[in-house]
């Protein structure tokens, strides 16, 4: 019996998940559901973060995960960061803008990154857009 190949339109998102350590205030932010990527560029990126987690001028270490499997089980930031299966990027908060009582938008100037990872991350963002556009076009043309 050869079954037809069906693709189900699921609600699954492909996105990265992030947590960070604020090395200036010595605070950790593991509320990954409240951290969102808005914009990425070669030398800076912008996130939405919980409002009390950081301030302008602070230095943060951002941990980027491909999925949330490890984060779901994380109760607190581990002392040994090598146990986190993720990529790391570090930067200084150059700008902070309050969005509402719970969220702030922060722009981070990158101070330290693995070039290969960051370049491929930016490429992935663009590839993701291309994939979405391709699906979109299929319905229109």
């Amino acid at each position, binding site marked *: *019996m050869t*079954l*037809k*190949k*069906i*693709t*189900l*339109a*699921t*609600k*699954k*998102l*492909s*996105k990265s998940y992030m947590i960070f350590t604020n090395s200036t205030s010595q605070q950790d932010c593991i509320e990954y559901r409240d951290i*969102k*990527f*808005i*914009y*990425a*560029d070669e030398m800076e*990126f*912008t996130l*939405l973060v919980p409002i009390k987690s950081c301030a302008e001028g602070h230095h943060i270490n951002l941990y980027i995960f491909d999925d949330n499997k490890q984060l779901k089980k994380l109760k607190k930031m581990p002392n040994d960061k090598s146990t986190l299966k993720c990529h790391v990027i570090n930067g200084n908060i150059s*700008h902070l*803008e309050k*969005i*509402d009582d719970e969220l702030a*938008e922060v*722009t981070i100037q990158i101070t330290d990154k693995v070039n290969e990872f960051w370049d491929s991350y*930016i490429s992935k*963002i*663009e590839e*993701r*857009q291309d*994939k*979405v*556009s391709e*699906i*979109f076009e*299929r*319905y*229109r043309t």
Partner: protein
Amino acid sequence: MDAKAQQLIKQYMKNKTFLAVESTVAGKTAIEQMLKKTAIARKNIQFAKNIEMALEIMKELKPNYIFTNEKLEDGNYKELLEEHLKQQPNRLEAGFILLSENDSLDAVSKVAQSEIDCLVMLPFTVTSLQSEFLKVILPKTDPSDYMKLLESAREHMRFDVDKAFDFLKKAFKLDKKPYEAYYLEGLIHLKSKSLEQAKSSFERSLKFHPKFYGSLKELFNIHMIQKDRHKAYNVSSKMTEEFPVNPEMIPDLSWVSVACAKYDDILSYHTAFKDLEEPDNDLKNYIAASLTVYGKKIIKDKFEENAEVDPDLLKRAYKMMEEASIICEDKPLVFASLIQALKVSQNTELMDNILKRAQNKFPKNKNIKVLEVIVNDEQLKPAESLKVAQDALKSGLDSPEIHEIILKRAVELGLPDRVIEDSMDQATKSFPKLKSIFEGVISAAKS
């Protein structure tokens, strides 16, 4: 981009106005910078933080293009889209761009079927934002005569159908494959409920472009309304081959596959479902419903229609019905449907298993309590079953099925006519429209 294209963009953008509905500075800055690079003056760009502000600006300035974040603090972007379509019905001079982090197939396919021009994913880069915007505006800077007629037809479709038809008549002659023009013609016929004419238009559209989703979907819907299951099936096959299947469509698609005895389609949905890592609850419920439809049909064929049913097919039907009860997340009616179907087959073991699952999932649900009575009716002696049903009724579980059990068992036990009449009165008092059904139960039990 060549010089000619740049010139066309510059010309097109002259006097166009823009509104960005975006609460983040990064979003606003990126949109502003991108638009300025595309030869738009700063004075032609407005910003709003939320829907309320956006609607105020729209009322005053009627912007040609809107960029909006999908998530807005005070409502849904669809309100803005609807207003924009009213304000700017000619979409060659206007556009609506949605920014969202949701790249799921479900979300993208739904947005693609709407009037939105494009979907920009968050996070974005300067490149991704600009390239998507250019994809939207480039065709509009130098549209063909065919495109202009299509947009004019679309513009007039809502309020001046005759004019819309005139534009389409001209459009048909201007393109070798005018599938969009026939699609629009079909939509106009649908609006005036002329199904046959709409059907003909969509069929013509598909002759020029057999995989055009809009026409496939509308034609499928028409065949379903007209209960032409074979034609509906043919169309649905093309849809499911080429496009992701939206979960909401699974019940209709399953119904049509089963009605055409294409049982393996249901297994295809199930196989695709099993490959998913974390399916959402809605999808689970829809797949469970499709497996239920599958099982019900085979059982009906075997036990009610007395048709020849392959024993392997029956075995698979039972397996899929069990699977449905395992997958179903939060729809008690799926369980009710499974048990009602299994009652006919007298597969009491499976009925029991499914009931136990239902009881675990929905311990206080009224429908499940009714199912308990139904399952008991299959397993208990008539007098015991009658007592269970009567107790259930006294406890407030008033359902047609319970009355049917009481009537059937009362007749079988040879209870006095007065008792049967009282039970009948009670049943018809609660469910007056089912009087003939209850009378049928009594006469079936007497014979």
